[in-house]
């Protein structure tokens, strides 16, 4: 197969997901370029998380195309395969390995061989240690490195999960509500972080915090009832009557 000519990294076309007749996604189409960051907004239940589920292989769409790098059909791959293609994800409710230390959580997330035998034989390298140190610093958990992840507060878990996402060094980051439960300052921080990452990678961010979205300063897609309601710069989208009606409120 030849390399695709389009710059599109992620391509969703006409994706529909229905649960017992309820359409969580309804003919959704979306395209994301290399090194593009996209903010997704939309009412609760619009299908934002479901969209991420589809991309990461957790949910199989009833219909539609999901292509990664123009050649990988994500609908036919499982979660691990998709992760290995270079798609990483932060979940809406933070999910980390409660029994492992913060450090081990990051270690497990670090990019590298994923097979059982290489895991059995793997040796801990200095490079890895440095990388983990840097990450801990970045998510401000250095002081907690030996604690069990299960003991962290909600917001700390959010940070740890972001750290794990970074550790994977994916080509595409899917970030579901990173600012939830963070203070305004931390929110701003996160925005910085994401902007930084988006210089070399593609990012999809879901967030309800408009200040945060504004700080990201990227193209915004607003979903509603499983399909795209509006797309464009934040100002344009937030001026959209329908968006105001179903999402922003008056």
């Amino acid at each position, binding site marked *: 197969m030849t390399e695709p000519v389009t710059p599109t990294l992620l391509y969703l076309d006409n994706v529909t997901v229905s649960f017992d007749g309820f359409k969580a996604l309804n003919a959704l189409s979306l395209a994301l370029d290399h090194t593009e960051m996209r903010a997704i907004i939309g009412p*609760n*239940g619009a299908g934002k998380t479901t969209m991420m589920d589809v991309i990461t292989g957790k949910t199989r769409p009833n219909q539609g195309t999901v292509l990664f790098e123009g050649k990988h059909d994500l609908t036919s791959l499982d979660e691990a395969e998709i992760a290995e293609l270079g798609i990483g994800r932060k979940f809406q409710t933070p999910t980390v390995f409660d029994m492992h230390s913060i450090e081990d959580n990051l270690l497990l997330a670090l990019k590298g061989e994923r097979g059982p035998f290489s895991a059995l034989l793997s040796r801990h390298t200095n490079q890895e240690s440095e990388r983990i140190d840097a990450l801990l610093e970045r998510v401000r958990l250095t002081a907690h490195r030996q604690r069990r992840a299960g003991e962290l507060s909600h*917001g700390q878990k959010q940070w740890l999960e972001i750290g794990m996402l970074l550790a994977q060094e994916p080509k595409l980051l899917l970030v579901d*509500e990173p600012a*939830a*439960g963070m203070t*305004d300052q931390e929110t701003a921080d996160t925005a910085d972080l994401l902007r930084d990452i988006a210089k070399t990678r593609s990012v999809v961010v879901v967030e309800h915090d408009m200040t945060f979205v504004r700080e990201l300063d990227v193209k915004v897609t607003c979903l509603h009832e499983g399909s795209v309601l509006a797309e464009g710069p934040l100002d344009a989208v937030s001026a959209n009557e329908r968006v105001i009606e*179903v999402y922003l*409120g008056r």
Partner: protein
Amino acid sequence: MTMLSVEKLSLHYGAAQALKGVTVSAAIGEVTCVLGRNGVGKTSLLRAISGQRPISGGTIRFDGRDISRLKPFERAELGIAYVPQGREIFPLLTVRENLETGFAPLKSKERRIPDEIFELFPGLRTMLGRRGGDLSGGQQQQLAIGRALVTKPRLLVLDEPTEGIQPSIIKDIGRAIAYLRQRKDMAILLVEQYFDFARDLADRFVVMERGEIVQHGDRSALEGGDVRQRLAI
């Protein structure tokens, strides 16, 4: 009138101390806001009040009565309702059943779902038959608040209720809290990170750091920048 008064509360997780002599109170018809950065102990405070974690020191008084040894359901029967962080709705029950669990502390003739819940969150009415666990995060948050209101509380304890909620509904929740406050039949204790939201609602506030209260005051103190500053460090 002071509904809740917490004095010198301390709480441990194993060997680690999460609360160190916290003193807070909440009065009827007022919103008391707890502010603080991640991991300072806000949730731990609410867990102690709702009875989900045993405390290791201090007292919790509700309506003048020491409730620090009571079981969670006894506190619920007294009129404390808790909307936890992470929603914790019953995933396999339908939305209606989730709301009906709130009947537990009520007398049998009081057992109906008040219409005002559907007025506050119209979305819930259309979802009555769906399973709680299937809802989106924001929908679950609405359900969790609704469920707490079903119990006809006299103290409503909310842990970051705006987390993951779309802006219009945040406004709705704000309005709802304001409405509940003006009804003057309950005290409201609100933990919040979203500063603007807190500022709009709070009658009084406390700021926590490392398990301690480091600052407190009333609404006017929030208008100035120093609290916001404090949270940003």
